[in-house]
């Protein structure tokens, strides 16, 4: 197979995954706590003929855009938005600790604070924060301390990481801390009660990226078509038995 076809194929392959990523960002442009993704490309150089390197393209990795999303006021006492690099800690159904920015919290009938999926939000002590019976005015302070009319009830565990880019999105608004542990110091993060952090997807950027991807894809497919014509011509011309 000819190199131009394979190089164009590597381009089309990488671009189709980039399109999937842009589509996922646009679909989640209203999802609370969502972090937009972006893609990193890299060239793979091979030199079959000395002095004439050929560059293939490879999508090396996706990374999360860690910019803060817009904070939207809702007035709900259990809605929290985090400003700063921290995350809320949640225990998911398998018992593992996952991290999230989606602060639309609710209360279970037994009084424990849970997220939208019913998974308990962890406190500093490691278990869920439980609101005792009869407390109706819940106040959440800037450092995550939950208190009611009768005093302090508990403290939401806020986790900051030494490498925020290393968090892996796991769906449902959760991030997994692969091989990382929280630094234990959450002083750079503030909790805002009564607000939600909306998705940080920038629509203008995603739409322009989508146009770009579409045109690049068409250009790459064009190269494949030209290659096809060239090879057909070559076979026809060179293969003529006179």
């Amino acid at each position, binding site marked *: 197979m000819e190199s131009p076809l394979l190089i164009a194929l590597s381009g089309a392959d990488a671009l*189709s995954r980039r399109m999937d990523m842009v589509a996922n960002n*646009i679909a989640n442009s209203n999802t609370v706590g969502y972090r937009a993704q972006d893609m990193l490309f890299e060239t793979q150089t091979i030199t079959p003929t000395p002095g004439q390197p050929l560059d293939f393209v490879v999508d090396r990795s996706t*990374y999360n855009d860690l910019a803060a999303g817009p904070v939207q006021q809702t007035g709900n006492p259990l809605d929290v938005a985090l400003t700063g690099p921290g995350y809320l800690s949640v225990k998911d159904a398998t018992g593992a600790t996952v991290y999230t920015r989606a602060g639309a919290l609710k209360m279970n009938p037994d009084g424990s604070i849970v997220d939208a999926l019913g998974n308990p939000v962890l406190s500093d002590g490691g278990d869920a924060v439980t609101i005792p019976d009869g407390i109706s005015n819940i106040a959440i302070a800037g450092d995550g301390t939950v208190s009611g009319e009768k005093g302090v009830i508990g403290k939401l565990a806020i986790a900051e990481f030494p490498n925020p880019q290393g968090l892996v999105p796991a769906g449902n608004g959760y991030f997994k801390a692969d091989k990382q542990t929280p630094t234990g110091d959450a002083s750079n993060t503030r909790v805002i009660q009564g607000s939600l952090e909306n998705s940080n997807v920038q629509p203008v950027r995603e739409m322009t990226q989508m146009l770009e991807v579409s045109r690049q894809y068409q250009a790459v497919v064009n190269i494949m078509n030209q290659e096809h014509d060239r090879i057909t011509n070559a076979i026809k011309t060179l293969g003529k038995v006179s």
Partner: protein
Amino acid sequence: MKAMAIAATGMAAQETNVNVISNNIANSSTTGFKAQRAEFQDLLYENIRRPGSDASDAGTIVPTGIQIGGGVRTAAVYRMHGQGDLKTTDNPLDIAIVGRGFFQIQMPDGTTSYTRAGSLQLNAQGVIVTPDGNPVLPQITVPIDATSVTINASGQVEASIDGQVTPTVAGQLQLANFVNPPGLEATGDNMFKETPASGSPTTAAPGSTGFGSIRQFTVESSNVNIVSQITDLISAQRAYEMNSRTVKTADEMMQALNQLK
């Protein structure tokens, strides 16, 4: 290429969003209505290249991998139980709850439903009922010859009878409280039903600790904030348009592929 399927999930989610917002706007003058909000979550990711996996024999680790998401889904449509605005009226049986609690209503099938809508009336026998004719629990009967009815902040219903100096106590209203009011199931007609998610009701007289008080000649209108609903509607519409644009672009890309010679 899953871009089209992802965009389809986006459009479906925004459709749910618009449905919830338009229900809120339609009920912006409904007594005792509590606004709803749709919440979304991203779908599972496909790990094309797992982060943290070894990049070479020397033990170098891939710092970030390739995760492609699957789109969005509606996680919950959550009902916000904030206090609605209080509107004064001339009807002595219009009562509003200021604070936490629900009125208990006896439904025709024998079950108890709960409501915040306190626009009550008297039926032919003098029993305090809702506009649908369902009596309030505990059942309170106002004497036929009462000239006026007073309901105080702790829910005591007193009727003034012609010729008597002191009003007679006709009954005592009770409020029901739940640990998790958003867990109640809405059955329409301003009524809510108890569910395992809401917890069991605890009843007490209005004004007790943790319960709201009653205000007569007042109704609690809906807690819908029109300005925020309209802004949400605009952003939902734009998100829907952008997702449809994604479908179109993915289609163009596949069309280019189809035209490959």
